[in-house]
């Protein structure tokens, strides 16, 4: 799942031009969208793009399917909010603290859980995230099930809610939130590109392909998985802080639920796991579609969005498991050999090998 498209930036100056145009278009977006509700969708797209990108480092590159990344997101949101509301610590510092707490937590839980492979790992991450959720839901010091409100930053003279960079709060329009979210997406993406091209990225892909073969070549599998989960957790937490400051309200239900973990993974899968562009494309397609569906079909409650959402997941899984980037690649390489190998092909070649070995055995006997 990691081929040419995994590194679109390396290619040729033309892609730099495309990137520049895209950057300008994104910077101008708040001016074009104008309405707060549309800008809200744009911000959500960026939030999920960043979360899916963070998930991708662990789930896409290393192939460790986490269904508990919401726990890291929630830990980030809670750490900065607690620091802010108890000790007036600026959310910018809170963001770093949250990233640190989430990374440490991730390494501590990763140590036992990484001994499990495949489906087992996915289930363990669900269980862990549920424990974290249950604890926060009952922990009165952090507001329990009702959650925590972040007080408005107010103008000292007029007493009205205002913008404050120190408090990472912008009450006079959503545009600043958009730019900060955009900066976060760029940050996570740059880190992903660096990971992708470095020893870490190569090792993670090797681990995803075949752990024993990786070990035989000197790869300390557990160490690199822990690095991947720490990076993934830290960025998820950073985005959690941003999200808390954006909503100015957090509770376990919105920041830590299984549904959020699933949506994060789904965005990456829809776009194409293990590619740098996949999570961004996935968020750009799925989040507006989900939001518009919800608005069109009359809010939550009747659950039509849930039905469509579920059906979409089933269809992608069956027909396009390599996501939209896989589709793009297939169109680009039409007629040529397929660019990515699925485990199916791997098994197919293993099956091809068997008769050859069998023939060899006969020859010997």
């Amino acid at each position: 799942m990691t081929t040419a498209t995994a590194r679109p930036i390396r290619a040729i100056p033309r892609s730099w031009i495309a990137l520049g145009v895209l950057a300008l278009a994104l910077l101008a977006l708040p001016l074009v969208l104008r309405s707060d509700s549309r800008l809200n969708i744009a911000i959500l797209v960026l939030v999920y793009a960043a979360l899916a990108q963070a998930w991708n480092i662990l789930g896409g590159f290393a192939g460790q399917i986490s269904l508990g990344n919401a726990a890291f997101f929630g830990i980030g949101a809670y750490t900065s909010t607690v620091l802010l509301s108890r000790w007036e610590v600026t959310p910018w510092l809170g963001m770093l603290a949250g990233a640190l707490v989430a990374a440490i937590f991730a390494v501590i839980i990763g140590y036992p859980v990484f001994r499990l492979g495949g489906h087992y790992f996915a289930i363990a991450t669900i269980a862990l995230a549920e424990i974290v959720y249950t604890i926060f839901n009952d922990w009165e010091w952090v507001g329990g099930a009702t959650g925590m409100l972040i007080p408005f930053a107010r103008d000292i003279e007029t007493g009205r809610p205002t913008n404050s960079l120190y408090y990472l709060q912008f009450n006079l329009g959503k545009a600043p939130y958009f730019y900060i979210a955009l900066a976060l997406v760029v940050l996570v993406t740059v880190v992903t590109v660096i990971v992708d091209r470095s020893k870490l990225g190569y090792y993670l892909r090797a681990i995803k392909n075949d752990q024993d073969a990786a070990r035989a070549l000197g790869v300390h599998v557990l160490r690199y998985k822990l690095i991947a989960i720490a990076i993934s957790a830290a960025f998820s937490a950073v985005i959690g802080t941003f999200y808390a400051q954006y909503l100015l309200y957090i509770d376990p239900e919105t920041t830590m639920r299984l549904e959020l973990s699933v949506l994060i993974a789904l965005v990456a899968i829809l776009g194409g796991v293990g590619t740098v562009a996949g999570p961004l494309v996935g968020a750009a397609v799925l989040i507006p579609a989900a939001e518009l569906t919800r608005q069109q079909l009359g809010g939550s409650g009747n659950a039509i969005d849930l039905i469509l959402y579920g059906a979409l997941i089933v269809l992608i899984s069956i027909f396009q498991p390599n996501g939209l980037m896989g589709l793009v690649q297939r169109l680009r390489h039409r007629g040529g050999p397929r660019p990515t190998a699925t485990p199916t092909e791997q098994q197919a070649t293993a099956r091809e090998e068997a008769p050859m070995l069998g023939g060899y055995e006969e020859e010997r006997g």
Partner: protein
Amino acid sequence: MALLELDAITKRFGGLVANHEVTFQVDRGEIVGLIGPNGAGKTTLFNCISGFFPPTSGTVRFDGTDVTGWPAERLVHQGMVRTFQVVRTFPDLTVRENVMIGAFARTNSASTARKIADEMLEFTGLAPRADVLGANLPIAQKKRVELARALATGPQLLMLDEVMAGLTPAERVQAVELIRAIRARGITVLLVEHVMEVVMPISDRVIVLDSGRKIAEGPPQAIVENPEVIAAYLGEKYRPRREETGEG
């Protein structure tokens, strides 16, 4: 001088003894063949040496260090590397990237790793296939990729688990040449093979396992004439026939 020394290696799985007090050594610059009929415990011994599971008792010394029970990834950095009987090419990585994974054992820089990889691809004759995905290679080339990426780790000792299996006679000749070229680079080679004919022409010394024990050791010529070895192999040869008549 001995590079690898096994002293009384025993491996038990529950009540089953897979290896019983196997002792031998491999000197620097040698090509040593480890042979034995099916179920002789060759692969188990291989896994014990290369750190895929610890021996029940006994010691493994490598390059003067006691490395008994060290995990595989640590042994690689010490200079011992292995390949797998059933090839384990990374299917989603290109040939070059496969070899780079090995090269990263020596360097943290991707560009250096790429340079090492390209050199190994040249050496193993895989250069024209550098950008093909692992999944899309025929078996003989997958075996070459296994070799190339093991060599890329910069080993002193290369342990090959049945590299010849599944190759055509012509491909085997090429493989033998390649193993000789590897030795010419100063790398010691330990070959596990099932078939005697393959091991004899290239090995300086041959060690024979049967039912988990070492039953013979010496130059190829002596091994071929060793009655115990002949018995072990003949026994195997006639076993299937006995079973057939037993059923019929």
